[in-house]
């Protein structure tokens, strides 16, 4: 997991807590503003519920809870980034909560740096790289690692 494999390209940046994160634009289907999230009981805590996305029921994940932080409050500023990703060998659509969504940025290969020691969030193993953009660190998230890791945690918890 420690291998950095972020590539140059276009990224969507967003805020989690006090830090700026980014995911490749190619994985993003759409950003939904304050959709109605239905809580799903008896599920892992970082799975915040489901939303209706174009007639499909799509799980919503809270990355802050995933990284061991506090839950993202569901209010008027909350956004859901709808992503396409691989999960257990299948292409799935998931919604990822974000405190707010910033912008689409171009990241050149020279911008990507090795990950520094992570600060408030212990997201180290889900980081594909860190880009330094305009004096600001942007954490490039490896969503696949973040989610499939979640599955592994569940499996071992069950056994």
């Amino acid at each position, binding site marked *: 997991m420690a291998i950095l494999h972020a590539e140059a390209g276009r990224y969507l940046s967003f805020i989690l807590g006090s830090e700026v994160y980014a995911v490749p634009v190619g994985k993003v289907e759409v950003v939904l503003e304050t959709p109605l999230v239905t809580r799903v*009981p008896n599920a892992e805590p970082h799975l915040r519920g489901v939303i209706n996305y174009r007639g499909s*029921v799509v799980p919503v994940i809270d990355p802050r809870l995933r990284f061991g932080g506090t839950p993202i409050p569901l209010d008027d500023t909350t956004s859901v980034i709808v992503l396409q990703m691989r*999960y257990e060998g299948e292409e799935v659509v998931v919604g990822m909560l974000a405190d707010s969504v910033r912008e689409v940025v171009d990241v050149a290969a020279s911008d990507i740096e090795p990950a520094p020691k992570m600060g408030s969030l212990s997201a180290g193993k889900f980081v594909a790289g860190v880009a330094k953009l305009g004096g600001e660190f942007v954490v490039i998230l490896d969503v696949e690692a973040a989610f499939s890791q979640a599955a592994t945690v569940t499996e071992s918890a069950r056994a």
Partner: protein
Amino acid sequence: MNEKFKETFREEAEELLGHLEDILLELEEKPTDAELVNAAFRAIHTIKGSAGMFGFEKAGRFTHDLESLLDECRAGRRAVDKRLVDLSLRARDKIRSLIAQDDSSAEFDAEALAMMEEFRAMAAESSGKPAQEDQKPKADETGRQREAMATRVLEASIADSGADGSGLSATYRIRFEPAPDIFLNGTRVLRLFDELATLGQLSSMPDTGRIPMLESLDPETCYVIWEAILTTSAGIDAIKDVFIFVEDSSKVKIELIDDRLDPSEGVRKLGEILVERGTVKPEDLGEALRSQRKLGEVLLERKVVTDSELESALVEQAHLKKVQERQTEGPSMSIRVASDKLDELVDLVGELVTMQARLLRTSVELADPGLSSIAEQVDRLVEQLRDNAMGMRMLPIGSTFNKFRRVVRDLSAELGKNVDLVAVGADTELDKTVIERLNDPLVHIIRNSLDHGIESPADRVAVGKTATGTIRLAAEHSGANVVISVSDDGKGMDLSAIRAKAIERGILGPQEQLSEADALMLVFRPGFSTARNVTSVSGRGVGMDVVKREIDSLGGSVSVESRPGKGSTVVLKIPLTLAIIEGMLVRIADEFYVLPLSIVEACVEANDDDSTDGSKLVQFRGDLIPYIDLKEFFSVPGEPVENRQIVVVNVQESRVGLVVDAVIGDNQTVIKPMGRMYRNAVGLSGATILGDGRVALIVDCMKVVEAIPERELKARSR
């Protein structure tokens, strides 16, 4: 040759070969049934003909000799025996692989050549001529010959419809003039017509001409006369039987119109019908026809016929036309549809159902009477459309059961055991995809029963059983589930052997104590197998764990029972898992849940003093039943409320109450999967989208009820 045609041929051949297998297996039991021999011949004949047409020449050539052999049987020159059935079954498998290979250039392999030799030898035995003289198909068969063959196939199938179709049908005209006081003795007139309709194709026309004006109408008197046209093969006596209880007081006239309508004759003229009925005299008809206008109008104008007489004749004409059309349509009333098109249809219907819920909701909000009535009618249509679409995907499980006959037959021969397969509930319908996915698990279970369960004939006789063992395959609906059980009357499962093996394999600790039921479940653990010898059948340590995994993924459950010396039973419980179910929408605080309506028995008010002793039992129809507070179960945040509702559900033969804040009502629930991430969410089986676009969760009542301790479920019987 176009790949698409080939693909179609393969699909059809696959179906025909499946059909052929069933026929052959039945033929083995009833070797003298001429109809079965015919059916087998026809299947082979059709395969041969179309194989040639679509460039599967090798399969065609191979099939030719088998066809000749079956033709001998058909002509009665050769009796059907075990050897013939055996060979035919093996040949069937060979044809299948030849079609799968689709390599006409290669030579036949040794197995195929040997079989072809055997066909010829067997055919020669019966006809008494040497095998070499038997007609061989020429490789350079011309296109015209093939065409001729295809035509013959067509003719054969048309002829079938005549023979198989329930004999000759005839069309009758029935005039039923009930006694005026017929209602007084409790006769339900319309029932008579329902009964007639079961005999065949019925068109009926009430003659209401005698109904008086309202002021002089006696509501207990029957004024109506019925005319009906019935096309049936049941015969006139069957029609008379329908009227047997009313024929004394009422007038019933039954006339034969036509023995068998000839499609080439064209549609009957209205005038002919009227004259034949005696409504119009031939001379009146001639005169009316000369006016060159619509006959009905002229006759009405001249008061030669009344409105209802004319209408009745028109109904007859329409009926006859329909019957003729039916006859020309031919035998096949079904068409082949790619299954993904059906899936797409069901998806679309699902969307439509969701939209419909929105329409209903909006119409209620707007309170516009015009819109409401449209919304209601659309609702009815959507419901019918939904049932239709779902119905198309439902198949009787019997189609799968038949495949197992072959498995049992071949395996029992291989293992030297005598085993009968008894199938019960073959008409139980299940969603197509579920049936497909059940196939492999069931094969594994049946193989296990055959291999490990049923003893050898000698062993069976030694313990006082019949030499032939029985495997019973049963399917039945049980609420929202289908229960499929596979039971054998073999030796049962050896608990100590299971334990020993589990310990040896490290599945179970040496000191671990297990209940009998839990010990039996060990066989579903990966890598478990107690077979001493690895056979080709089972005992490779794969199988039962695969069964469990597959059934789990269908949202079902597996259990196993075993009685030493008596046999064992594997029970699969599969949810109907239709894409759309009837649901009941409930609210807990501000969250919405759907319960499958099929298991809901009643809704009752929850009394606060119901559970004073904290036992979580509630009175229902004189019984004490356990209940679960769904608010607690799903940890729904929110303040406690008063006047809650208990939904009584029936799960696994137990009544259980589920406490909710409010029951909203019926809901056509389009089941949407929640995705793999939520597969561990206990007590939920899916989600659905409500009319307002929000997502509601579907409660998996079985899983919820499992949370109730066993002793409380049993409290009911106290």
